[in-house]
C-alpha cells in the first residue's frame, strides 16, 4: 500500500511578491475589456442615439437643444398612449399564452425518458429554422378566408360559410405570434424543469405526494422563475414585432413598434421616435425588474 513514490517534498510553483504588480495590471486590463466592450459596442451608440429624444424638430429640421417636449407629447397624445398600453397588453397575452402552452409542451417532454425526450425537444424548436416572414405568410394562408382552418370547420359542420374571425384582427395577431414565438418559450422552460434535482421528486413522493400535488408544490414553484424568464423573452419579441400585426392584424394591427417606426421614415421625427423607444425600453426594464423581484421574494432559486 505504501509504495507511492513521493519525491523530495517540492514546494509547488511559488511566485510570491514580484508578479503582484503585473497581476494587478492584468486584472485592470481584463476589467477594461469586460466592461469596455459592451459599453463601446452597445451603450455608447444607443446612448448617443437616445439623446435625440431630448431634441426636437422644427420645419423638418433637427433642433439640438434640450427639451422634454417629446415625452410631454407622448403623454399628451392619447393615440400613442393607447397604442402603447394596447401593445403591452397584446405582448402580455402572447407571453402568457406561450407560457401556458410552452409549459405544457416542455413538461410533457420533460416527463419522457431517453432518446425520445431530446428528439421531441428538438422537434419543438425546429420551426424556428423557418424564416419568419415566410411563416407569417403561411399563417395568413392558414387562418385566411379560404384557408385550411375555415375549410376544416366547414367540413366538420361548425361553419356554413368561411369566417373572418381568425384573420385581420387581434386574435389573428395573438395566434400567429404565439405560433411563431412558442419555441422560444419551450426551451427555457424545459431547461428550468431539467434543473430540478430528481431527489426532490423522490422526496416528495416519499412524503406521500402524489404526482399532482408534487407538481403543484415542488415542480411548479421550482420551474416557474425560469419559465417566467422564457415568457418575458417572448414578451420582448412580441413587443418588438412589427410585421405580424401589420400582416394579420387588419385594421386592429397598429402597434407601438409600428408607431415608433413611422417616426423615422417620411415623418422624420427622430426625436419623437427616440422618446417613444425610451418609453418602451423603460417599461420593459421595469417589467423585468418587477418579475425578478417577485421571484426573489418567492425565495425560489
Amino acid at each position, binding site marked *: 500500500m505504501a509504495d507511492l513514490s513521493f519525491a523530495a517534498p517540492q514546494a509547488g510553483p511559488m511566485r510570491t511578491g514580484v508578479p503582484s504588480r503585473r497581476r494587478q495590471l492584468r486584472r485592470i486590463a481584463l476589467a477594461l475589456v469586460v466592461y469596455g466592450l459592451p459599453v463601446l459596442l452597445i451603450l455608447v451608440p444607443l446612448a448617443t442615439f437616445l439623446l435625440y429624444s431630448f431634441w426636437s424638430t422644427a420645419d423638418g429640421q433637427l433642433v439640438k437643444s434640450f427639451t422634454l417636449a417629446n415625452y410631454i407629447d407622448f403623454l399628451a397624445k392619447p393615440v400613442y398612449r393607447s397604442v402603447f398600453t394596447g401593445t403591452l397588453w397584446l405582448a402580455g397575452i402572447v407571453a402568457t399564452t406561450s407560457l401556458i402552452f410552452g409549459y405544457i409542451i416542455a413538461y410533457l417532454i420533460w416527463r419522457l425518458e431517453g432518446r425520445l425526450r431530446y428528439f421531441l425537444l428538438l422537434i419543438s424548436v425546429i420551426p424556428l429554422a423557418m424564416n419568419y416572414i415566410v411563416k407569417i405568410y403561411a399563417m395568413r394562408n392558414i387562418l385566411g378566408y379560404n384557408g385550411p382552418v375555415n375549410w376544416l370547420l366547414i367540413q366538420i359542420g361548425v361553419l356554413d360559410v368561411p369566417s373572418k374571425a381568425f384573420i385581420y384582427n387581434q386574435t389573428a395577431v395573438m395566434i400567429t405570434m404565439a405560433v411563431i414565438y412558442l419555441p422560444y418559450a419551450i426551451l427555457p422552460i424545459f431547461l428550468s424543469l431539467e434543473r430540478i434535482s430528481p431527489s426532490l421528486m*423522490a*422526496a416528495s413522493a*416519499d412524503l406521500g405526494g402524489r*404526482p399532482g400535488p408534487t407538481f403543484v408544490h415542488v415542480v411548479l414553484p421550482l420551474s416557474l422563475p425560469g419559465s417566467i424568464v422564457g415568457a418575458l423573452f417572448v414578451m420582448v419579441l412580441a413587443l418588438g414585432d412589427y410585421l405580424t400585426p401589420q400582416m394579420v392584424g387588419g385594421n386592429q394591427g397598429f402597434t407601438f413598434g409600428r408607431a415608433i417606426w413611422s417616426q423615422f421614415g417620411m415623418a422624420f421625427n427622430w426625436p419623437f421616435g427616440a422618446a417613444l423607444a425610451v418609453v418602451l425600453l423603460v417599461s420593459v426594464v421595469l417589467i423585468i425588474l418587477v418579475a425578478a423581484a417577485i421571484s426573489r421574494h418567492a425565495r425560489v432559486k
Partner: protein
Amino acid sequence: MTSLSSNGADAGMSFRNLIHLAGVGKSYGAVNVLKPIDLTIGDGEFLTILGPSGSGKTTILRMLGGFTPPSTGRILLDGVDITDMPIFERPFNTVFQDYALFPHMSVAKNVGYGLKMRRRPRAEIDAKVADVLAMVELADKAARYPAELSGGQRQRVALARAIVCEPRVVLLDEPLGALDAELRRSMQDFLKALQRRIRTTFVFITHDQEEAISMSDRIVVMDHGKVEQVGTPKDIYYRPHSEFVAKFFGENNILPARLTGAGASLAAHSPLGSHALSGPAPADAISIAIRPESFCVGMAGKSADDQRSMTGLLESLTFLGATTQLVVRLGEGSPHTVKVRLPTPDLGSGIGIGEPVPLRWSDADVSILTA
C-alpha cells in the same frame, strides 16, 4: 449475571413479520451490485444495515422506498406484494443521504410537507411541526430556508421531515453522518426513544459500529453486495461467522488456526492454544478471533474454568482517551501479535516497551471463524 440487554436485543426475534425481502437483488446493466437476499424485518424492529462503502446499503433502502425497482425478487409488506406499489402510497418515509430538502420551502414548510400531502388540518400540522422541530433543536430555525443552514442543520431538518408523519417504516440513510459527536449522541438517544415510543420499524444505515450496536435490535452486515451476517448486536459482536465480520465489527485480533480431530474431538489450534469446535467440520483453513478488550493484563483475579493465560512482550502503547491500546507479541520471536485494549486508568503499574506482559482471557471470548 446482570442482563446486558437494555436495548431489547434478546427480544429481537419476537417481532411480528412486517416486511419480507424475498430474493431481492439488483444489477445495473451487467454490473451486479446486490446479490439476491432474503430478509425479514419485524414490526417495530430497529434494523441496522452496516457495511463498507459501496457494499449496497443504499441500494437496499432505495428498493424498500420504491425509488429503484429490484432486478429480481419481490418485496412483501404484511404479506402483500408491494414491489410495484408507487412510492407515494408506501407508508414509509425516508431520510435521504443528500438531504433532498426543498430549496424553495422554509424549514417549517419542509417538515410539514408530508402532513400537508395527507391533508391534515393546519393546526395539527403547525403543532406537530413545532414539536418535532423542538426535538431536533431547530425550533428557532423554522423560518429559515435550507440554503441558510449548515450541513448538520440540514440533515436534522431531513430527519424531522421524515418522522413527523409517523410512518410504518422509517428509512434512514446515514442520518447522523454529518452531525458532531455531541449532537450525534443526543440524536441517537432521541431516535431510539422515539422508535420505542411510536413502535415504528426503523431501517437504519450507519457506518458507525458502536452506533449500530447501541441502537439496533438486529444488524445486517453487508460486503460487496452480499449479506455477510444477520443477527443481534451480541451475536455479531461475540459470534462473528466470518473474518470479514470479525474485522469489520470493531477492532479484532484474527489469528490463523489449524483443524485437528473430527466429530466430538474436533478442535482448532491457534497461537492462543486449542479451542473445541462443535458442528460440521469446515472445509478449509480457518481462523479465530478475539477482541482487544477481551484480554486482561496481570495474573490476579479469579481463575474461572475457561480462563487462559500467556505472557507476551509489549511492542507499543497508544493512548486513545478512555482506553489505551497495547500491541503484544505472543512470545519472543513469534510471528503473531495481538492488540489489547485496556481502560486507561488500569495502567497504574507501568510496563515498559519490550518488557513482558502477562495476558489473561477467557476461551469463551474466542470466536472460531468458519465462513
